[in-house]
């Protein structure tokens, strides 16, 4: 049987030692999982290795760890795949990030992940009394929320969320995806309050930096970032929430800028993001950005004539597209997760 080396990050709060790496040899078939590997090491070499697991089949979400630096389920990652991606052939297994380590590979999900899930009121809040018989939900609506319902709460996305890394208060990918699960459910009666609350929170909807790490991390295809973008559309465009974080204003300034110019004109974007050059929010922001803008001017980076007024050659066609699409009664949103893969028609 092939041998694999697992390099496991060890930490025990009770013995006072700093976290450190330990190598273990496991002999298992390559199609067995990294979790099987860790459990073999635990069984044969050191019973004190800490890891959470239950179903061993990618269902319960207990076994989230980082493998070779990337978050995943230990039970769903084959040893041979992990080995192929390992630098120097050593499979590195460490606890997930953004959460305090309790012991070895076990992180404190309560302190971070579950607290954030609670933050979004993760249950249905129907309006008015329940119907006499069951609620009737159109199938399309149900399919729409299945993507977020696929979440198994493993925390992999939370582990590598880059906004949370610098702002621990950020509500984060898993919880915001969960929020969409209820915002998108027609039985819920608090859509507007929910999105307003999340948009107004300085650590909410608009604190996501669009880094795709959560999409990359999620073993269940939940694509939390895509759900966050859908929440932004619902907040800004359906409920006209003008959040105090300037999120929606920035989005609209950008969109209008392109509509007007065809290409992005950054010089207008900054003040417009704060509500226009004379908007009270814009003034302090512009003043604080002044040194940077001046520095750019000084370097000859920004010249009004050459750089900022880059003229677009087909503004009419671009404007027409904006008019056509923004004039539609409803946004047309294709979700490939829902639409599924196409047979090759050609």
């Amino acid at each position, binding site marked *: 049987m092939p041998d694999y080396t697992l390099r496991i990050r060890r930490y025990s709060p009770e013995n006072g030692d700093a976290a450190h790496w330990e190598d273990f040899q496991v002999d298992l078939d390559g199609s067995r999982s990294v979790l099987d590997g860790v459990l073999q090491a635990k069984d044969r070499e050191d019973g004190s290795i800490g890891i959470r697991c239950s179903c061993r089949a990618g269902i319960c979400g207990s076994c989230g760890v980082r493998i070779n630096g990337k978050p995943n389920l230990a039970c769903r990652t084959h040893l041979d795949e992990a080995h192929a991606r390992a630098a120097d052939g050593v499979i590195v297994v460490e606890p997930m990030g953004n959460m305090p380590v309790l012991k070895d590979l076990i992180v404190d999900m309560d302190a971070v992940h579950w607290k954030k899930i609670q933050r979004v009121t993760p249950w249905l809040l129907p309006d008015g009394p329940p119907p006499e018989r069951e609620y009737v939900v159109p199938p399309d609506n149900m399919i729409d929320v299945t993507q977020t319902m696929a979440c198994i709460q493993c925390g992999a996305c939370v582990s590598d969320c880059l*906004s949370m890394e610098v*702002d621990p208060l950020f509500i984060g990918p898993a919880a915001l995806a969960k929020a969409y699960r209820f915002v998108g459910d027609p039985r819920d009666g608090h859509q507007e309050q929910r999105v307003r609350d999340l948009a107004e929170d300085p650590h909410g909807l608009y604190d996501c930096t669009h880094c795709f790490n959560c999409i990359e991390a999620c073993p269940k295809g939940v694509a939390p970032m895509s759900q966050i973008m859908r929440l932004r559309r619902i907040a800004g465009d359906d409920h006209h929430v003008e959040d105090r974080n300037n999120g929606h204003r920035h*989005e609209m300034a950008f*969109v209008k800028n392109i509509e007007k110019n065809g290409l992005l004109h950054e010089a207008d974007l900054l003040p417009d993001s704060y509500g226009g050059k004379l908007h009270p929010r814009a003034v302090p922001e512009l003043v604080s950005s002044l040194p940077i803008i001046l520095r750019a001017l000084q370097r000859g980076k920004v010249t009004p004539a050459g*750089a900022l007024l880059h003229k677009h050659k087909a503004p009419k*066609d671009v404007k027409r597209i904006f008019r056509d699409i923004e004039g539609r009664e409803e946004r047309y949103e294709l979700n490939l997760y829902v639409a599924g893969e196409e047979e090759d028609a050609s």
Partner: protein
Amino acid sequence: MKVAYWPGCVSRGFAPELHGSMARVAPLLDIELVELDRAACCGAGVIAEHNQELADTLNARTFALAQQEIAGGAELMMNICSTCQGAQSECQERLDGNTPYRDHVNATLAAEGLTYEKGITNKHFLWLLVEEIGLDEVRRRVKRPLTDLRVGPFYGCYIVRPSNRLGIDESHPRDTYLHQLIDALGGTVVDYAGQYKCCGFPIITMNKEASLKQAGRHVGDATDANADCLVTPCPLCHLNLDLQQPAAAAVVGRPLNMPVLHLPQLLGLALGLEPKELGMNKHVVKPSSVIDWTTSVVAAA
């Protein structure tokens, strides 16, 4: 080779030295740039955040314009902005993945006589260098190897994630191409913690502190790893890492003085162009104030 060239907006706006250096470098590699000057901004993910169909239609239009050039002899579409690559790949995934949707988008384009046919090849300059031109060829054309220059690759987000959408696999390890290129140019690759992280640019108007903290951390990590400079394939990363570097330094509470080069600038140096021709005097952190070109690069010529 002839390419249908999408320069993006930032390379013509706040980072003109990118467009300029690309234009200088292209002939040295026998690349003919046919600029898609009627195409509109890719939306940088923000238009898609507002209205997906709008972003998809604008980019389908760009692809259709590129396909006209491809029919006229260009080999593929090329861009020089990771954010364009990511945003356009996302739109392409939807357009290529669903025929009724593509037909619907094409119906909007029909007014202009344009149609997007499934399956355009749209590659960032970095991918084109490795996959089309080949690093051996690049190596042959190096006039001034970047000997002794310690370069930290900054990939950012849009060009490496999500990996399946961006076609990253064993045969296309696109998340290592900056490493490979630095090496091919004779420089030394410096690995540091933030090389695949986010520069923070998308939230600069929403949560400035968190945004600048990201930029400041990565630059600080690269400093600690003794990099002489960073190189990035994305002009938006460049805005947060270079233009905002003094502000980022204030947020993270440590002095930072790290030059950040655009990809064609680093390449251009090795191909023998002068820092000034490549617009390197336009950066906020002046590369010449930090790197002694006479010992790092020029002396090795």
